[in-house]
């Protein structure tokens, strides 16, 4: 289940299985959940009965039977769309399910005594049971580490094969059922009953089995049901208007008119769109605990982003060497390199690469080198080699160790570095101050442009950082965020979210620690990191399996894409009605009022061919749009007004014009084969 694994839109296995399932889904009891398609099915059955009756009584039945077939196909295409979407989800779920083999858990009677345990089947575990997990075991269920430190391979859930450390206390205490303990042992308190684990929930969600309709989907269904009833009234009363006018409409004709007018296209594709939206999230390795959260993601208008790792690279990097007046810049650079040779931290490595890139200095660690590691006491690190000692460290510690007043030029450099929001390090060689290194938060390339795009979409970005105000303001300006929270702590994050929400905005944030839980719960969309604590995962309404906070932006886009797809197909479906009137109305009224043939602006061959063409178009358009429903309409960050104009043009105006062309083409094909013409 990694990002690389994409399932083809036309995966033969899925399509084959979906074909069978689409027939099973014809059961009217389950289909009643979808009012538009349910009405279509009833009407199809009615027309089929009419056709069979005509056949039995030796009356012409060809037209009725043909219409009945196409009406049934309309229903089947709709159920097929849903089945394909579910099939794709199921394919993803399969890989998850493999991880959920039923293991035997080691149930501890006394949490403090690891010697006595009872082997218990994993499904029998209950909340608050305590189990022992040892190297090589599968973790039997979701839980919280209460004792021990171990490395866990979570690839079954995240797709990431590098083991992660799990330990009691802190922000790395949550373990997921189905993941694999690589080393050591853990005592785990179970936090989920069987069948309700994280993995179980994920499987249910991606399969669509437990899919509940989302709020917007429910509202849309009501609209579609309402429209269906409106058109049922229009078609049924037409019998009366027809009788007055001296026309008797046959059942297939009225059925064709009704099915063409009710919004079958969106009715047939609605659940597929929802399932596919969830699927897109899963493909991004994000699991939403509800479809509601995905919709809310589209509505978000403020993003709280952690500075470190999201806006800047996780670590500070060397960005400049500032020598004291008596020292040559190159000498300083060499001293910096020497002082960092033994420093394995990202900051240390960044000093080496900065010196290499800027000054072409590349030195190897001398054989006689004694590496002095960083200690909290001295707050310095460095190297002793060839009788010389090189040190770098926090400015005040270094100065204190030297015991001399620094050169004013040095003090000036330090102040400048601090004003720029960077961190200065002092560098010495043999007890002599050589200069300063500027360690800077480097803003990720391209992030500023992304924030600009978000702003165009109406989304404000807020940087959250533990840095002081000066540093925060500098980075915020550089990254182009709209606002920042400096010296962030759980409380001021929570306050900020509440303040933004009180202005009528929806907020999304991500977090991993237990102390993030209140803010995650308060936010409208809270994305918890998979590496985070159980508390954080419970509080959020999405979990990011890759634990990549940058994804918040993609999550918002996926939410928007889901809503856009739904809106585009609804608009398209409703706009289709106009052309269908022009196809069907002249055809059904022509015997009474031949003059109404003037409305046959498409010049369709015969009344039968016109009606049939409209019905065929109505059925085929569902299949044609299945890929769009599954893939989603592309989201563009161009602002609501421009987006509306664009989509209205494509799906609104397109929805009016497309069926004119489609129906005419089908009619021409029917004419070619002399079918009802």
């Amino acid at each position: 289940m990694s990002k690389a694994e994409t399932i083809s839109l036309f995966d033969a296995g899925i399509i084959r299985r979906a074909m069978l399932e689409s027939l099973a889904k014809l059961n009217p009891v389950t289909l009643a959940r979808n009012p538009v398609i349910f009405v279509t099915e009833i009407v199809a059955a009615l027309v089929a009965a009419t056709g069979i009756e005509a056949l039995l009584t030796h009356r012409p039945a060809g037209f009725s039977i043909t219409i009945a077939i196409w009406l049934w196909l309309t229903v089947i295409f709709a159920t097929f769309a849903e089945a394909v979407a579910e099939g794709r989800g199921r394919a993803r779920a399969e890989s998850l399910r493999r991880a959920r083999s039923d293991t035997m858990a080691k149930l501890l009677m006394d949490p403090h005594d690891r010697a006595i345990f009872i082997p218990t089947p994993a499904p029998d575990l209950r909340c608050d049971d305590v189990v022992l997990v040892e190297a090589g075991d599968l973790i039997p269920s979701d839980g919280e580490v209460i004792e021990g430190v171990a490395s866990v391979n979570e690839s079954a859930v995240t797709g990431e094969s590098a083991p992660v450390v799990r330990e009691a206390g802190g922000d790395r205490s949550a373990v997921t059922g189905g993941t694999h303990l690589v080393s050591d042992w853990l005592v785990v308190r179970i936090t989920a009953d069987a069948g309700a684990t994280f993995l179980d929930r994920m499987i249910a969600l991606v399969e669509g089995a437990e899919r509940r309709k989302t709020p917007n989907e429910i509202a849309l269904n009501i609209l579609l049901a309402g429209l269906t009833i409106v058109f049922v009234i229009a078609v049924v009363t037409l019998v009366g208007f027809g009788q007055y006018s001296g026309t008797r409409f046959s059942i297939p004709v009225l059925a064709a008119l009704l099915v063409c007018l009710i919004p079958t296209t969106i009715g047939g594709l609605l659940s597929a769109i929802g399932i596919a939206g969830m699927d897109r999230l899963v493909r991004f390795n994000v699991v939403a605990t509800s479809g509601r959260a995905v919709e809310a993601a589209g509505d978000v208008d403020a993003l709280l982003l952690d500075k470190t790792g999201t806006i800047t690279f996780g670590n500070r990097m060397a960005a400049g060497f500032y020598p004291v007046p008596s020292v040559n810049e190159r000498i300083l650079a060499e001293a910096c390199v020497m002082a960092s040779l033994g420093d394995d931290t990202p900051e240390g490595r960044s000093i080496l690469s900065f010196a290499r890139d800027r000054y072409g200095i590349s030195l190897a660690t001398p054989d006689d080198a004694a590496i002095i590691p960083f200690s909290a006491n001295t707050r310095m690190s460095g190297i002793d080699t060839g009788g010389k000692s090189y040190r770098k460290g926090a400015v005040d510690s270094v100065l204190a160790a030297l015991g001399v007043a620094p050169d004013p030029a040095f003090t000036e450099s330090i102040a400048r570095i601090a004003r720029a929001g960077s961190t200065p390090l002092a560098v010495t060689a043999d007890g002599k101050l050589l200069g300063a290194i500027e360690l800077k938060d480097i803003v990720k390339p391209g992030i500023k442009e992304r924030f600009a795009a978000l702003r165009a979409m109406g989304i404000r970005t807020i940087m959250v950082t533990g840095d002081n105000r000066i540093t925060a303001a500098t980075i915020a300006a550089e990254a182009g965020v709209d606002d920042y929270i400096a010296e962030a702590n759980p409380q001021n994050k929570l306050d900020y979210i509440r303040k933004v929400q009180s202005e009528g905005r929806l907020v999304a944030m991500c977090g991993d620690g237990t102390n993030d839980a209140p803010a995650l719960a308060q936010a409208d969309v809270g994305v918890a990191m998979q590496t985070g604590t159980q508390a954080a995962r419970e509080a959020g309404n999405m979990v990011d399996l890759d634990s990549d906070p940058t994804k918040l932006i993609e999550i918002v886009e996926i939410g928007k894409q889901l809503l856009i797809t739904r809106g585009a197909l609804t608009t398209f479906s409703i706009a289709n009605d106009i052309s269908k009137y022009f196809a069907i109305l002249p055809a059904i009224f022509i015997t009474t009022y031949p003059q109404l043939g003037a409305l046959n602006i498409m010049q369709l061959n015969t009344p039968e061919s016109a009606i049939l063409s409209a019905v065929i178009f109505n059925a085929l358009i569902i299949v044609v749009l299945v890929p769009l429903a599954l893939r989603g309409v592309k989201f563009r960050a161009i602002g609501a007004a421009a987006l509306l104009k664009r989509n209205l043009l494509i799906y609104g105006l397109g929805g009016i014009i497309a069926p004119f062309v489609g129906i005419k083409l089908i009619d021409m094909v029917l004419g070619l084969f002399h079918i009802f013409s």
Partner: protein
Amino acid sequence: MTIHGLLYIALLFALVLGAAFPLGRYMAAIFEGRIVWLRQVEMCFYRLAGIDAGRQMGWQSYAIALLLLSVIHFGMLYAILRLQYYLPFNPLHIAGMSPRLAFNTAASFTTNTNWQAYVPEQQISNGAQMLGLCVHMFLSAAAGIAAAAAVMRAFTGSGLKTLGNFYTDLTRITLYLLIPGALIAATLLVMAGAPQTFAQAVQLHTLQSGAQPLAIGPVAFQEAIKEFGTNGGGFFNANSAHPFENPNAWTNLLENWLLLVIGFALPIAFGHMVKDKPQGRTLMAAMAIILVLGCVGAYAAEAAGNPQQIAAGVQASGNWEGKEIRFGIPASTTFNVSATGTSTGAVDSFTDSYTPLGGAVPLFLMQLGEVTPGGVGSGFYTIIVFALLSVFVAGLMVGRTPEYLGKKVQAKEIKLAMLGVLILTFFILVGAGFSLVTPSGIASLANGGPHGLSEMLYGWTSATENNGSAFAGLSADTPLLDYGLGAAMLFGRFAFMVPVLAIAGSLAAKPKLAESAGTFPTTGTLFTFLLIGVIIILGGLQFMPADTLGPIAEHFLLYAGKSF
């Protein structure tokens, strides 16, 4: 069509839209309780009726107060009509109405419909006109505007629990808007020659030395509120084609202006109320565009005339049948189209005599749900329903769940909105479709073929949409139509208004979300045309099959040489 005709339409709309802006601001001030120049009178009413003017009502209380008032008025009007023989101001000793006709008439005036299944000169006394009908012309109009004000308040803030006080709304609207407006207009009409007297008739001696009673009465004041409150119930059967109701071309322009101006001022008032004027202007633009197209369309159809009459040399050009020479074709068609676009239902020419397409325009405007600009108040809250449906259908296309003015449109609102649309569709189509297959219904038709179908469809549409105009020709005082249309009027009014108030209550309670660049824009050209599209597709498309068998079939038959 002539350039003068088109200029007349342009002049009318310039006058109406120009006046709508200041009037809208004034109305917003009334709704917000900032107009107090008759404070003493107002307070006196509250004291007399024991009303706590400071009490704020939730949507349920507001709706109950409105319904209660309507029920009482319905009962009073029914009693007046039944007992008019015994009541004062009945010099011609007109008998009481039959129960069924009284039911129909009471329903008609309580619902601001003013469908007239009776002949006023013969079946209703001056006393009943004044105390019964004229009073209701004020009250039903004020009730509609009050409901609109309540809906406007839903969008003014976050987490609102109340929508205002129905009684103070009703009083203020009547006192500060309807009565002053009607008084000024009545004075102008009297100056132009409309009668305003307690005398019932003038005896004329004809050239053949016969005697003819010429009905007169308190015409001018009723005429003023008839138009200003989009009522439409004429003092005379001939309605605004009658020279006493509408003496000359100037009064015709005045009346046409009167019946449009509040409807167009309401969205402007809305813009002021929600402190976002472009929102109001956008709704007004959508209303105006549809109505202008309707006016031009009907004018074009009538100016083109009846091909058969032109071929036979009966008329040189244009269809003059059923029109007053003193008004001419453009002023006549524009008046009737305005009156159907506003649920006024007044006529100064006879729609029944229009060409099929000329007659289809008023029919279609009513079917759209009376939003162009619709009845006073009702037109506004109906277009709000369409605006909600527009953002719901197309709003998703910007990638956010739909919202209108910062209020999320969700399942509950959609359920109630669709309920309203369903009720209108049901009464129009089931009513007309059923009537056309019953012998009683067919007997009411004056014409056969598609023209007869149009008459029946028009009648049910007019009643359900609370318009009240008739395609003439239809004999409406039959048990089927009296009771059926009466029910259609009551359901068309209240079974739509109550869900709309419920929507307002639900929206009011929601938080008002801030606007951003990602918000669906509900102002500007794009939304205007989207709204028009939704009004036509969701409001009008369901009637196309029936319309095709009526006016559209008749049109093609006419040009094929058949008429009805």
